[in-house]
């Protein structure tokens, strides 16, 4: 019964969900709720839906403390630390920014992992478990509220994209050209090869046919019929001559 309420709040146009700060958005949601139990439930939901950072102002949210794991000690500092360390980059030990996760399941900031891969180009191993890692074998993580959905791998590495230029077309038999938009090539050869040459046209693709009804279409139809008769004539001549 609590889910529809959550959805309703999230759909409110005046919420700051499109804003930049996660903290603000959480505050907005919590302001709409008077019932503390609902408060707890929704903040739990928000946490489960992949918030990118856990910089939640825990002091101002009484419901959140129930959701925290008590693993290390009794003081609130310890609890906060154990909870946040789950989302720490394994290289800079800070909360992961532009987070990516390796196939072996280890979390990194993409800038950190990229730098690590650059440091040892010949041995691309996971800094934690030494499994193979590569640029294409990491998964970017997108939190629900992250405004920029860009793949972090595209942002940070100043990696130049490859420049590929098409080779110049080799000058050769130009084919039969009839002005713009009409292209036809026609091969003449000994009987069985004649079909092959005319049906397999390598090289430049044919331009699309003109739209039905236009004068160009009429012209093309006439010309194609003309050439068809000409082809039959040639084949007949070859067969009976």
């Amino acid at each position, binding site marked *: 019964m609590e889910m529809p309420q959550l959805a309703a709040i999230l759909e409110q146009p005046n919420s700051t969900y499109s804003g930049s700060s996660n903290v603000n958005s959480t505050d907005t949601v919590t302001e709409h709720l008077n019932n503390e139990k609902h408060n707890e439930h929704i903040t739990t939901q928000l946490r489960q839906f992949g918030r990118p950072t856990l910089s939640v102002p825990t002091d101002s949210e009484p419901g959140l403390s129930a959701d925290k794991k008590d693993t290390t000690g009794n003081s609130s500092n310890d609890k906060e630390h154990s909870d946040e360390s789950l989302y720490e980059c*394994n290289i*800079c*030990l800070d909360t992961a920014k532009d987070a990516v996760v390796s196939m072996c399941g280890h979390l990194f900031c993409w800038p*950190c992992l990229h730098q690590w891969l650059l*440091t040892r180009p010949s041995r691309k*191993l996971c800094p*934690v478990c030494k499994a193979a890692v590569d640029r294409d074998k990491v998964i970017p993580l997108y939190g629900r509220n992250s405004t920029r959905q860009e793949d972090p791998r595209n942002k940070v590495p100043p990696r130049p994209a490859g420049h590929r230029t098409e080779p110049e077309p080799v000058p050769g038999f130009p084919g039969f050209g009839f002005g713009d938009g009409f292209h036809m090539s026609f091969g003449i050869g000994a009987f069985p090869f004649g079909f092959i040459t005319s049906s397999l046209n390598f090289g430049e693709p044919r331009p699309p046919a003109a739209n039905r009804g236009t004068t160009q279409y009429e012209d093309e139809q006439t010309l194609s019929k003309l050439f068809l008769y000409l082809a039959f004539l040639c084949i007949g001549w070859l067969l009976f001559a």
Partner: protein
Amino acid sequence: MANMAVSRIKREFKEVMRSEEIVQCSIKIELVNDSWTELRGEIAGPPDTPYEGGKFILEIKVPETYPFNPPKVRFITRIWHPNISSVTGAICLDILKDNWAAAMTLRTVLLSLQALLAAAEPDDPQDAVVAYQFKDKYDLFLLTAKHWTNAYAGGPHTFPDCDSKIQRLRDMGVDEHDARGVLSKENWNLEKATECLFS
């Protein structure tokens, strides 16, 4: 990048301070200067090894490229171990060279060094003389290592025989550390040691 090295070292420093090992007094870490580029580590000799009861001081230098490159670590406390130079304290340990990984921390480095003290690798030595003694005359190696632990790291085992031989050489004007080094190398044979020193 230097900023990253410093911020990471600060975090690691806290991690060591919070760790269980600090409670057990098995590892320790302290700052040498304010720039966080040089630290001093301390590890306790592991139990059931000739290093038991000793405290070994380490020099840790953090490069600008840390954590992408390993910290430079060497023993300040003299130690008799196949993988540690008895002269310079240089360490032969793969994770401080090619097998370094960016997720390793000061804590894991100190614990790895402690493990190295417990499990020497004489086939991949840093100090060939020590490694030879380890493989060839293991009893003498244990004695020498315990003696060095006592002399430099505050270990509990004393060896009056070793001390008297060192004293004999000192009486001839030889420096104490040189005398200990040569005697250890020559398997505590005083004649050979004297020959080696004065020939």
